[in-house]
């Protein structure tokens, strides 16, 4: 996957591409600011794969207009991303923006996008405020919010897992928001938090934290970690003898599809919540997984679905406008009206908050044939971000 421009490979050539007209045959330009280097590179890659898979399925066309995807590296750097945004807006004249992974980047882009009235479909970054205090008429989010992730586990954990829980999360705004939402829901249900600790993002050693947690003897541990942190945390959880003794619960990134193979058998028994799972048994998901595996010869991840859905939202919005992107406000409103059944289940936007309304699922990791697999245990149902 590379930054740059993807143009349809098998679409019919258009002779008059050089003479742009208001509502003519010139392509719709979709700008994507996603990480292609650094720690988050694999997320960017999967998001892109998902998007391209969907665009390909519609032949890179919507309402008769070609779609051009212009990719820029987010570099996990807000200022760099702003530079890219200016390029996309002023040089490439994009019609719609999508991305990013980092919440800080999303916040950085927010004002510029808002003031230039550019429709912006957030396809991953989950910071709560983006659809709360930093809401914009032009920004919609099809992925998730940290609140959705954390909240979804609260009540279930109290009812089915434990009454006294230790909370740990990576020390950054998003991690804290997830933990906060969990704590809120868990204590509201009647649970007790016996302790909490927030190791720095990218901690390379959790030994002392784990010893500490173990000493507190909680009934379960709720953890939010992702990527390399999740691999280390879950493995060390096993090495320090907590696995099997104290149930580990958390968000779906703890035992996500793309990192589980690297965790060996250590994630066995983790219970987590997420808005999608590889094994989700719906026709939409089956079709998606099959198509994805055929094209990339790899399992899709959460981010693949996000990309796939974002692409679909864009295409549906364009269709509803008959391909007319001249009015940014209309385009933005059209995005908000899109709803369909995605591989993750039915999704639609909350017109108030501009945030996606979606189902969440309870997922458990088991050992099958000597390898770990996730299983969807239960459907938690539709969770709508309160927007406050």
């Amino acid at each position, binding site marked *: 996957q590379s930054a740059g421009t993807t143009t349809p490979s098998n679409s019919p050539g258009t002779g008059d591409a050089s003479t742009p007209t208001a509502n003519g045959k010139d392509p719709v330009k979709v700008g994507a600011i996603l990480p292609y280097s650094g720690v988050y*590179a694999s997320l960017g*890659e999967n998001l892109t794969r998902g998007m391209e898979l969907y665009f390909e399925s519609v032949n890179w066309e919507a309402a008769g207009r070609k779609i051009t995807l212009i990719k820029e590296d987010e570099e996990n750097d807000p200022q760099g991303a702003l530079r890219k945004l200016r390029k996309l807006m002023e040089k490439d004249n994009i019609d719609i923006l999508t991305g990013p992974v980092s919440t800080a980047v999303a916040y950085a882009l927010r004002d510029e996008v808002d003031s230039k009235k550019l429709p912006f479909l957030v396809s991953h970054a989950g910071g709560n405020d983006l659809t709360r205090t930093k809401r914009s008429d032009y920004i919609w989010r099809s992925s998730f919010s940290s609140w959705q992730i954390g909240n979804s586990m609260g009540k279930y954990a109290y009812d089915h897992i434990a009454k006294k829980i230790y909370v740990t999360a990576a020390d950054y705004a998003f991690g804290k928001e997830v933990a906060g939402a969990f704590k809120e829901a868990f204590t509201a249900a009647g649970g007790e938090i016996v302790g909490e600790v927030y190791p720095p993002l990218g901690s390379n050693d959790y030994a002392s934290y784990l010893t500490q947690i173990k*000493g507190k003897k909680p009934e379960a541990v709720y953890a939010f970690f992702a990527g390399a942190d999740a691999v280390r945390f879950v493995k060390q959880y096993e090495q320090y003898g907590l696995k099997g003794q104290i149930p580990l619960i958390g968000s779906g990134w703890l035992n996500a599809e793309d990192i589980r193979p690297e965790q060996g058998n250590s994630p066995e028994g983790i219970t987590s919540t997420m808005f999608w799972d590889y094994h989700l048994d719906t026709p939409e998901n089956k079709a998606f997984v099959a198509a994805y595996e055929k094209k990339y010869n790899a399992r899709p991840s959460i981010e693949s679905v996000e990309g796939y859905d974002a692409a679909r939202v864009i295409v549906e919005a364009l269709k509803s406008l008959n391909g007319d992107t001249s009015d940014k406000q209309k385009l933005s409103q059209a995005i908000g009206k899109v709803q369909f059944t995605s591989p993750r289940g039915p999704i639609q936007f909350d017109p108030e908050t501009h945030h996606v309304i979606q189902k969440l699922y309870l997922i458990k990791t088991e050992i099958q044939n000597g390898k770990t697999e996730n299983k969807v245990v239960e459907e938690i149902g539709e969770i709508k971000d309160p927007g406050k």
Partner: protein
Amino acid sequence: MVLDIIAIQLVNGLSYGLLLFMITIGLSLIFGIMGVLNLAHGSLYMIGAYLALSITQHIAPNFMYALLLAPIFVAVISFLLEICLLRPTYKLGHLSQVLLTFGVAYILHDVVRLIWGANVKSLTLPPWLSGSVELFGQTFPLYRILIMGFGLLVAAVMWYLQEKTRWGAIIRAGLSNREMVSGLGINIKIVFSVVFAIGGLLAGLGGVAAGPVLGLYLGMEFEVLILALVILVVGGLGSITGTLLAGLIVGVVETFGKVLFPQLSLLIIFGLMALVLVVKPTGMLGKQVH
């Protein structure tokens, strides 16, 4: 009970400290002895870890082979690096080497991504290494105990090489006046290449040894680099013993710091470094600078 926890945390700290020592020793050698600030050190470490991954996955599913082979590969890479890139820069001064090795780090970052992809990876230990033992009534990973022994062994070998052989003196002489050393009939260029290769070997060794604990992912090299630089400075330049001591102290302080002041985790290590330097401007065991 409380004492048990303190004891186990101490072991945690010491084992983490020796891990840090393993990560730093190559950098310490190259900077302390050759005066080259090798910002590609983290990258060499990373390559060691990734090579070990490939070796265990494709060549021989045996961690011990990886521990042996991967560092040698890395040593060859650094040997070539020294000859092709670093050599012309000695006369240019330290900052040029900083820029050069940083460039190398950038390149290796993409090279690793091309070869191994952007996904998080992990180096799996064979069962006989991945078990746990009981320590002070707590479960403790066996591998971390072995790491401690291994770290001490490496320290002993390094100390011997530097203090007890003529090599150490030749290299220190080359550092202050290369011209004169070659005027005494010593091919200082080769000596430097070999030292750099040994530095690479140690970086690779660190990568293989620490990989199973710290994980493999893009960007790990810069985290490791910063960590290693801190240890290097806290210990003082040019002192293997200093590096060892610094590793242990940082390991223990960080382990207890995380527990006692979790809010400050982010700055424990830098705070410690600042404190050491303010009190002792040449690090704990660094030689006095004129």
